[in-house]
């Protein structure tokens, strides 16, 4: 079954987007990327060390992958905008995962600064994929100013806590039926990914859950299945929840 999703005119067959951070080795990352089936990977923008020669990290990414640079580590709109511009110049891509952090301990997004940065970057022609708190009104504002998707968190970055507020995601899905919603951050295990997809997310972005697994490639495979399973479940329409039992076998006709 083909169930691709389109973002900014580009078609993706995988609804799993994965990161490149925290892996114990480049080889482990490559095995995990392959196992995940992902077609888009995030990378971070960072100062080049001046005291030693460095190899290009990008050489370890499969050439067919869509590279999505992020603005991680930025605490205000100005730094995020500058980082996005540098990423575009280096990679010759308009794609940017916009991340403006509001607090070092929780790494929760600064929604106000995110919106400010998104406005500027959209006007400059960027394909802005904004990470933000799972808030419907903020999602509407981000879509209104021209973001092609919204990326609400499931839980704090790297926490592995899973979807903390399923109602918010469900409401966002129901109120924004045409929007592309990508759950970003907080997934810990495949069941978390499946829950987010069952709630109607179009895709999921994750990093730590795979990179910090004891067997990253195997976890990437599991996440691949979970995203697919959750998506199929959402499309299938779940049975209603009932407080009491409903027999699966005929009640009448049992021997007496």
């Amino acid at each position, binding site marked *: 079954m083909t169930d691709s999703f389109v973002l900014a005119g580009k078609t993706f067959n995988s609804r799993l987007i994965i*990161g*490149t*951070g*925290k*892996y114990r080795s480049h080889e482990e*990352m490559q095995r995990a990327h392959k196992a995940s089936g992902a077609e888009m990977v*995030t*990378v*971070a*923008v*960072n*100062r*080049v*060390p*001046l005291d030693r*020669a*460095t190899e*290009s*990290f*990008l050489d370890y990414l499969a050439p067919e992958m869509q590279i999505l*640079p*992020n603005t*991680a580590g930025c605490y205000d709109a100005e730094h995020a905008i*500058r*980082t996005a*511009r*540098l*990423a*575009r*110049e*280096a*990679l010759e891509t308009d794609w940017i995962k916009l991340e403006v952090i509001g607090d070092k301990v929780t790494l929760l997004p600064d929604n106000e600064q995110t919106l400010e940065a998104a406005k500027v970057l959209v006007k400059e022609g960027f394909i802005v994929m904004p990470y933000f708190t799972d808030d419907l009104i903020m999602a509407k504002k981000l879509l209104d100013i021209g973001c092609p998707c919204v990326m609400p968190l499931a839980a704090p*970055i*790297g926490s592995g806590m899973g979807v903390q507020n399923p109602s918010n995601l469900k409401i966002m899905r129901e109120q924004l039926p045409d929007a592309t919603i990508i759950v970003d*951050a907080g997934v810990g295990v495949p069941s978390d990914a499946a829950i987010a997809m069952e709630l109607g997310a179009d895709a999921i*972005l*994750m*990093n*730590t859950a795979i990179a910090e697994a004891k067997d990253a490639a195997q976890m990437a495979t599991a996440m691949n299945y979970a995203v697919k399973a959750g998506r199929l479940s959402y499309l299938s329409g779940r049975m209603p929840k009932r407080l009491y039992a409903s027999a699966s076998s005929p009640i009448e006709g049992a021997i007496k």
Partner: protein
Amino acid sequence: MKVLINGETKEIAEEINLAELLERFSLSAARVAVELNKEVVRKKDWNSITIRDADKIEIIHFVGGG
């Protein structure tokens, strides 16, 4: 003259352009980007921009991230 590169103060004796500065640090132009005083400098302009005293330069590349 003194310039600030990636937050580090560096002494530069002679007049050089941005391309020459990057060569000095053995940085290949591929997949690196440069910002001069908070404005991105296009690769095609690296040869024509001369470094000045007190310039603030940021040179970035890519690392693993989520």
